[in-house]
């Protein structure tokens, strides 16, 4: 048995433990270990992606206890690629954090950061719903602490509603798991998919309640309206390097919902009409709220948070569509929009550093030091985030326009997606002209160029690179969508069908 699927979780977790034990070691040592762990994680994730590239599904039974009795991690095209995206983004975020010296502004930054990464990796890789809950809690408690890290009173005030909402979400998650276990007798995702078609009619109501509760919890993590109003305030209060990693957090909810709906829901009486018509409507509403947030924003970080909401709404709508075409478009759009919004958060951080007291507020001020390179990065990220041609964001939107939005949703979908692009371009043009073009006074002397150049540069060129690699990326998205919508392969790979599962009926 290959141990590859567990390594993306194990490496950062071991690093977190080591960093906690060696918390009094020299700062350089801790930084090196933290960076080394993420690089090693990126290495094993790339290995995992290569192993899964031909369409194999690799189950990993933790402790050798086979599914459905034990807990399994499952690596397939989707989870392997998302883990690669995670470690790439985490390396960029860590580089930014080190450049800003965020780790000297409070204790335990590195262990928390590693735990956050381990939690996200586990949430992507797990094949068990209760294990998903555990990894959600790991990534959440790390995010609670990272959110207030190095921040003063505003960060604490932003953290409180975020923590409370997520605790209520966790309670709902547990309710769903309790009901699911009480009716189906299993929490393994593949086993759930196997059992769902044969749910006795008297249990159908409870199972549907449990599945909808799960969906609601995932949508809370994805900040879909009406459970998304916490996001702009929270993300805008986080330090920029932390917000870079947070840009991926909302995608964890989307991916969990996507996997649940693709593997467990199709063509079963329990899953019939569970997500439609309410999820497409909520997705569209989220796009509207995101656009309004960006329009009303008074800081660049809030603009970025608005774009996160738009991205979440778009992805939620595509998940609700449920066809392989829509999923392929979603998978093409997801990494791009994650990197673009992460870039905007980092840019807001760089602008805040360059302008001192004015921070990233959208008001006119003296010219910035390093306004030239920052302006170039801003234009690239703005075009990417708003989804304008010629960059890959536009291609993603084109695929979404064609792939998703069937039946009565077509016109609303086309209108809102195109209008959100227009409004996004408008917002960013306004923000850019206030920050970069209107200042006439020269920059005050003695303020150096912020040192975020390298991570910001990587995020700014990510979208052009993805545009150049659009054909392979689209082929990957299509292959992944087809694999995702073929739950039979997933189920038989996880459960090892040839030996058969011995199962007794749940007592009434």
């Amino acid at each position: 048995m290959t141990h590859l699927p567990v390594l993306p979780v194990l490496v950062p977790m071991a690093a977190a433990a080591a960093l906690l034990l060696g918390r009094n070691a020299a700062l350089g040592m801790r930084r090196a270990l933290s960076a080394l762990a993420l690089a090693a994680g990126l290495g094993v994730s790339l290995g995992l992606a290569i192993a899964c590239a031909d369409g194999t599904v690799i189950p990993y039974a933790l402790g050798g206890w086979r599914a459905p009795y034990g807990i399994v991690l499952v690596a397939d095209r989707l989870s392997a690629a998302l883990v690669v995206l995670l470690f790439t983004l985490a390396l960029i975020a860590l580089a930014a954090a080190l450049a800003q010296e965020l780790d000297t502004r409070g204790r335990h930054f590195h262990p928390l950061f590693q735990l956050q990464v381990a939690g996200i990796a586990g949430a992507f890789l797990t094949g068990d719903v209760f294990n998903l809950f555990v990894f959600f809690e790991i990534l959440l408690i790390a995010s609670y602490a990272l959110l207030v890290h190095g921040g003063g009173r505003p960060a604490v005030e932003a953290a409180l509603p975020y923590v409370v909402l997520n605790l209520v979400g966790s309670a709902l998650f547990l309710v769903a798991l309790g009901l699911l276990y009480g009716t189906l007798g299993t929490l393994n995702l593949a086993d759930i998919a196997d059992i769902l078609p044969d749910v006795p009619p008297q249990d159908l109501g409870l199972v549907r309640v449990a599945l909808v509760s799960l969906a609601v919890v995932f949508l809370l993590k994805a900040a879909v309206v009406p459970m998304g109003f916490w996001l702009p305030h929270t993300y805008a209060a986080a330090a920029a390097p932390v917000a870079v990693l947070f840009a991926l957090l909302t995608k964890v909810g989307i991916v969990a919902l996507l996997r649940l709906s693709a593997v467990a829901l199709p063509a079963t009486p329990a899953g019939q009409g569970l997500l439609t018509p309410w999820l497409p409507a909520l997705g569209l509403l989220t796009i509207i709220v995101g656009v309004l947030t960006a329009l009303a924003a008074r800081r660049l970080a809030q603009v970025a948070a608005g774009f996160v909401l738009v991205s979440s709404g778009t992805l939620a709508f595509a998940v609700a569509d449920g066809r392989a075409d829509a999923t392929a478009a979603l998978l093409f759009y997801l990494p791009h929009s994650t990197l673009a919004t992460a870039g905007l958060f980092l840019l807001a951080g760089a602008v805040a550093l360059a302008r001192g007291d004015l921070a990233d507020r959208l008001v006119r001020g003296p010219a910035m030091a390093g306004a030239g390179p920052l302006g170039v990065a801003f234009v690239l990220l703005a075009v990417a985030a708003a989804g304008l041609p010629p960059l890959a964001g536009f291609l993603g939107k084109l695929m979404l326009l064609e792939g998703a939005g069937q039946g009565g949703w077509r016109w609303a979908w086309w209108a809102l997606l195109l209008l959100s692009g227009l409004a996004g371009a408008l917002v960013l043009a306004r923000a850019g002209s206030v920050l970069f073009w209107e200042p006439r006074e020269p920059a005050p002397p003695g303020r150096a160029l912020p040192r975020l150049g390298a991570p910001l540069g990587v995020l700014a060129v990510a979208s052009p690179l993805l545009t150049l690699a659009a054909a392979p990326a689209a082929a990957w998205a299509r292959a992944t969508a087809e694999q995702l919508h073929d739950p039979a392969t997933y189920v038989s790979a996880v459960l090892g069908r040839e030996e058969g599962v011995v199962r007794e009926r749940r007592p009434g």
Partner: protein
Amino acid sequence: MSLELLLALGVGLLVGCGVWLILQPRSFPLILGLAFLSYAVNLLIFLGGRIDRLTPPLTLPGFARLADPLPQALVLTAIVIGFGMTAYLVALGLRAAAAGDDDRVDPPPGDDAP
């Protein structure tokens, strides 16, 4: 049957108290409400394994069925996580209360602070 009804009503009562407390605008009742909610949830998971007095948790001669030990493991995990989260929330609530001389959890007046 009556025991099941009693426990189900208990879960409902705990959820009701928890939700009412969570809707209060101060952090102390809020934390209490979340604790009530987590008690209710733990009880619910526990009930997912069915109430059964006479089936053994191990294979014993003379018994055809086994009691389900998994919900107890799930509840244990949920309790540990819930405890950790509550502790963190108390610390956060104390910090927010100390910073603002007040434990109200209203949104701050202006959101354009850096």
